[in-house]
C-alpha cells in the first residue's frame, strides 16, 4: 500500500516550482495516494516471467540521417510565448535561489 506523506508532496511541489499552501497540501496528498495506489495495482498482474519494458513494440535503432531541415521562423517560434518577447527571445520570470 503506497502512501505519500505531506512532506513528500511539499518536496515534489518544490521541485516542480509549484507554490502550494498548507491547505492545498492537505487536500492533494490523499488524492496523490489514490493515484499511486491505482498504478501500484499493475504490480499485481506483472508476474516474474514478464520483463519490465518501456516500449510496447520490440523496435531498436530508429535513427534519422544527420541532415538539416527547416524548422520554425522566429515569428512562429515566439508566437505562442505567454509574455511579449524581448530581443527575439522568450521572456521568463527570474528563478530565485539558483543560477544558470
Amino acid at each position: 500500500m503506497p502512501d505519500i506523506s505531506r512532506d513528500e508532496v511539499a518536496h515534489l511541489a518544490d521541485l516542480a516550482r509549484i507554490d502550494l499552501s498548507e491547505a492545498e497540501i492537505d487536500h492533494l496528498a490523499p488524492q496523490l495516494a489514490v493515484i499511486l495506489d491505482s498504478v501500484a495495482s499493475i504490480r499485481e498482474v506483472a508476474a516474474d516471467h514478464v520483463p519490465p519494458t518501456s516500449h510496447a513494440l520490440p523496435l531498436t535503432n530508429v535513427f534519422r540521417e544527420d541532415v538539416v531541415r527547416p524548422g520554425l521562423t522566429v515569428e512562429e517560434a515566439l508566437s505562442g510565448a505567454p509574455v511579449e518577447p524581448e530581443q527575439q527571445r522568450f521572456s521568463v520570470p527570474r528563478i530565485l535561489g539558483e543560477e544558470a
Partner: protein
Amino acid sequence: MTTERTLSFTEALERFDPTLGLEVHVELNTASKMFCGCSTVFGAEPNTQVCPVCLGLPGAMPVLNAKAVESAVRIGLALNCDIASWCRFARKNYFYPDMPKNFQTSQYDEPICFDGWMDVTVPDAEGQSVRVEIERAHMEEDTGKSLHVGGATGRIHGADHSLVDYNRAGIPLIEIVTRPVTGTRESAPVVARAYVAQLRDLLLGLGVSDVRMEQGSLRCDVNLSLSPAGSGLLGTRTETKNVNSLRSVERAVRYEIGRQAAVLDGGGSVVQETRHWHEDTGITTSGREKSDAEDYRYFPEPDLVPIAPDADWVESLRARLPEPPRERRARLQEDWGFSDLEMRDTVGAGALELVEGTIAAGAAPSAARKWWLSELARRANEQGLELGDLPVTPADVARVQALVDEGRVNDKLARQVLDGVLAGEGTPDEVVERRGLAVVSDEGALSEAVDRAIAANPDVADKIREGKVAAAGALIGAVMKQMRGQADAGRVRELVLEKLT
C-alpha cells in the same frame, strides 16, 4: 559574495589528500540537433534554429541523429570503453526555463559507453603518466541560453526576468565522467588540466567536435574532495560548474584544495554542493545544494526506442579510429629525433601538423621545426595569427629549405623568399624568380669580388697569409656586402682561403 579563508597549497597538502573527478560536456559537431533537423551552427540570431521538437511543443516527437550515435561510440572506443549492446535514453526531470520540455533527454543507468580509461601524460614530471579511469560517456542534449536582464551584471542576482534563446537546446552533447582520481597529491591541479587538454586533443583527432572551450563546445565541471593525508578515505565533494578554460581547470582545483582544507582545518565540514567558478577573481562561491538523483525522477524515455549498436559495426568503427594523440606524439618524437623540450615546444606552438607536413614534403625534421618555431612563429605572433593561419603551406616551407640545401639561396635570402610567399607573390620558386633572389653562382663574378675585397683590405689579407684563418670573416663580410647578400657564404670562404693560403 564573501571570500572564504583558504589554506596555502603546501599547508593543505601536508594535512590532506585531494581526490579529483572531472565531468566534461562536449558538443558534437553534427550538422543537425540530437532529436530534430534544426541547424547547430554557432552564433546564429536568437531562436532562428528551433522547431516544435526542440521547443518542447505538445505532440512533437524526437528522432535520434545517427551521426551523434556514431560519434558517441567512437568517443567511447577512443577512451577504451565498453560499448553497451543495448541502452536507452531517460528523462531527467527538472524545471528551469532553459529546458523547454521540463526534462532533459539524457541517459541514466544505461550509458552507451562505460568502463574506460585514458593515460594522461603529466607535464613537467619526467614522462610520468596517470591512468584516469572513465566511468561513463553518455549521450544527452544541450539546453537553451538564458540572458538575465534588469540586473547590473547580467547575472541572476538583481535580475527582473530572463530572456531565453533555444538555438542551443537539443544540440548533441556527450558527457564524459571520470571515476575518482586519487594519489595525485600536489600534481592534482596539473593532472586535471592535462586530462582536459588531452581529452580535447583526442576529440579533435576524432573530428567529432570543434572542442572550442571559449565557445562552450567543451565545458568542464570539477569535482574535488579532501581526506586526511594517508587515510585512504573519500571526503565530501563539491562540484564546481562551468570551468571553461584549461588554465581555469588548474586554478579551480588549486583553489578548492585550499578552501576545503581551511574549512576542515577549522573543524568544519565541507558541504556537498554545486559551486560557481569566477574567472575574474579565481575563486569559487556556493551555489545550490546538489539535488539527489532521485529528485530528477529519471525514467526511460518512452518516445525513443532503445539503441542496440551492432557488434560488427562497433568493430568497424574501432578499426578506423585515428592513432591516439599521445601515441602519435611519442612516435613522431622518436622518428624526428626531437628532445622532450623540442617536442613540447612544437606541440605548444600548435605546429605539430605543420612540422609533420613539412617533413613529409621532404624537409629535415630540425629544419622544419626551425622554420615554424622561429621565423614563422615570430611573424604569426606579430600579426596576431595562429601559425596554421599564415598564408604559407608546409610544402612551401619544405621548398624554401630545399632551395637552401641546393645552395640556391642562403638563410637570409630564404627569409626574403618566405616574405614573398606570405605576401602572396606565389610559390617559393616564383618568388626567387620574380625578386631575383638566387645567390650568385657565377664563379667568375664571385672570384672578381674576392679579388676586390683582398685589394681593399691588404692588412686582413696579410693576416690570413700568416695563417690567421679566423680573420677571413672580415673579407667574407666585404664580399657579401658587394654581392648584396646574394652569395653562398661557404663558397666565398673557400675562394678567400684558396687565394691566400
